[in-house]
């Protein structure tokens, strides 16, 4: 297309602006509810600005404890999910397994039905095994939901890996460990990070299943936030969300910086 560069840049900038607004405005609503009073979305900005919702949030929520609980559980769930998902995805992607599609369906099934419908059994198991109200117990419950998405992402990652590079590695004399470290891991890293991210988010966002297996020492972010909405108090839930989201965003930023954004998007040259 022969658009003048300036026009293309302007169009690009406009699209970008539209995208940014699309994504952020709903959250801006939450912010305004959290910092305003008697606003209700009715006029542009609240008439009355206040910090009292944050005061309530601080009074009702042990922020630090909730954050620690959520983070520890999510990290545990991510690690276990990856450990289970990586070999599974490798097998599905690289071997011609019988009934592979059905197998994939069976692995994804936990994400295909509402949690409340199998929650009773999970609650019973957790209680009987003494795992209620423990980080490990809740993390394992979350793995039920996190591992399927990890398998989904990693399967596509391993399927997309160029076998000629693996071949080349073997032909050039790599043993198993070297092949894994120098060829497979770098190639798969964007996918592994994505799988880790989705596992982390699956655990971090979980509400219904957590309510089955939690206790006083293991209240997580969604539990605390959802149950502060009551009959419609978005303000306090908004304040809690704002407080709890800041560290969450920081953690995600850290995760993404640690594995350099270029790796998420860029090529694999230079391995």
């Amino acid at each position: 297309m022969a658009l003048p560069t300036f026009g293309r840049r302007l169009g690009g900038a406009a699209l970008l602006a539209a995208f940014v607004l699309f994504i952020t405005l709903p959250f801006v609503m939450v912010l305004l509810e959290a910092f305003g009073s008697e606003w209700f979305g009715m006029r542009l900005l609240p008439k009355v600005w206040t910090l009292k919702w944050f005061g309530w949030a601080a009074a009702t929520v042990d922020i630090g404890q909730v954050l620690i609980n959520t983070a520890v559980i999510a990290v545990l769930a991510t690690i276990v999910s990856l450990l289970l998902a990586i070999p599974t995805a490798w097998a599905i992607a690289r071997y011609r397994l019988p009934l592979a599609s059905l197998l994939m369906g069976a692995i994804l099934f936990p994400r295909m039905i509402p949690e409340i419908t199998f929650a009773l059994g999970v609650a019973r198991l957790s209680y009987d095994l003494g795992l209620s109200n423990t980080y490990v117990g809740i993390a394992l419950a979350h793995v039920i939901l996190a591992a399927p998405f990890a398998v989904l992402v990693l399967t596509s990652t391993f399927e997309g890996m160029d076998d000629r590079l693996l071949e080349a590695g073997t032909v050039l004399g790599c043993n198993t460990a070297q092949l894994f470290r120098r060829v497979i891991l770098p190639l798969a890293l964007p996918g592994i990070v994505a799988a880790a991210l989705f596992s982390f988010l699956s655990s971090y966002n979980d509400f219904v299943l957590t309510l089955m297996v939690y206790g006083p020492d293991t209240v997580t972010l969604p539990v605390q936030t959802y149950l502060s909405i009551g009959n419609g108090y978005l303000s306090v839930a908004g304040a809690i969300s704002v407080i709890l989201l800041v560290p969450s965003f920081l953690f995600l930023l850290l995760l993404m910086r640690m594995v350099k954004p270029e790796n998420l998007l860029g090529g694999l040259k230079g391995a």
Partner: protein
Amino acid sequence: MAWTTWRSSAAMNGSAGPGAAVADTLHPASARLTAATSRRVAAAGLVLPLLVFLAAAFYLPLGYTLIQSVTSAQGDAFTLAQYTTFLASRQGQGVLALTLFLSFAATLVSLLLSLPLALALRRGFAGKGIVQFLMMVPITIPSLVGALGLLILYDRTGWLNYLLVRTLHVVSQPVPIDYTIPGIVLFYVWMFFPYGGLVIMSGLGALDPALEEAGRVLGASPWRTFRLVVLPLLKPSLWAGSVMVFLQCFGAFSVPLIAGGNYQPLAVKIYTVATVFLDWHQASAMAVIMGLIQVALVVLYRRLDRQPGRRTA
């Protein structure tokens, strides 16, 4: 895919081929077993841990749900009535149609949004990091909070309609978005497109730029390069991304509950039957139906994706 081409050639040659060499170095098998059996054993070994975990943690509890779905509150030992009444009723069919429509529509729109976005983000530009970061917002906000935010933003009295009616004067009456089908699709896209977007970005990131360069050097236009080189290589990511978005849409609960108005898709209905009507038998049957439909769709989709004659890289 390269995998299938040289695997089939290896099979034709009667040897295990380099793939087996890779497999065997990773998972040494007894010399007495044939290569094929050793591959099968290795495959089973790899898949077993997750399957055992799911069997214990999920399928065992699910067994109870299954039993509930075929027994009834009246004490029937076995009945399919819960399934048939739902599937045969107009209400049930309507719910299924609604859920399917919303999910397909939102998945399609999400893909149409994610793919160009991911492509645009490849060429470095100033906003790349910000955009990538912002894509995290919908999936890190608790969904009920996000749903309420969406409700407020797109209401008759919200910012968007304020812009359209009072500032731009594009329309004279507020545009109804909340509680409408297009509105629900829009909200689903907001909530769930990052799932697809992040998978596609990850897949794009693993592409070897040399392949695209080759296409360009050989005289193909950017569009042809995209269509014939990039797109086929992206297929696994597109597949995984769209499945992920679809599953999220199909199972969506908070958004339709808050902003769906009279439109109540499957997850909302199951929740109502289970926790308000306390009819766990009916709810279990509906859940099984829900799961089986999605399994069928995923299996079908994967089959379509794996058709022979598909171009390989």
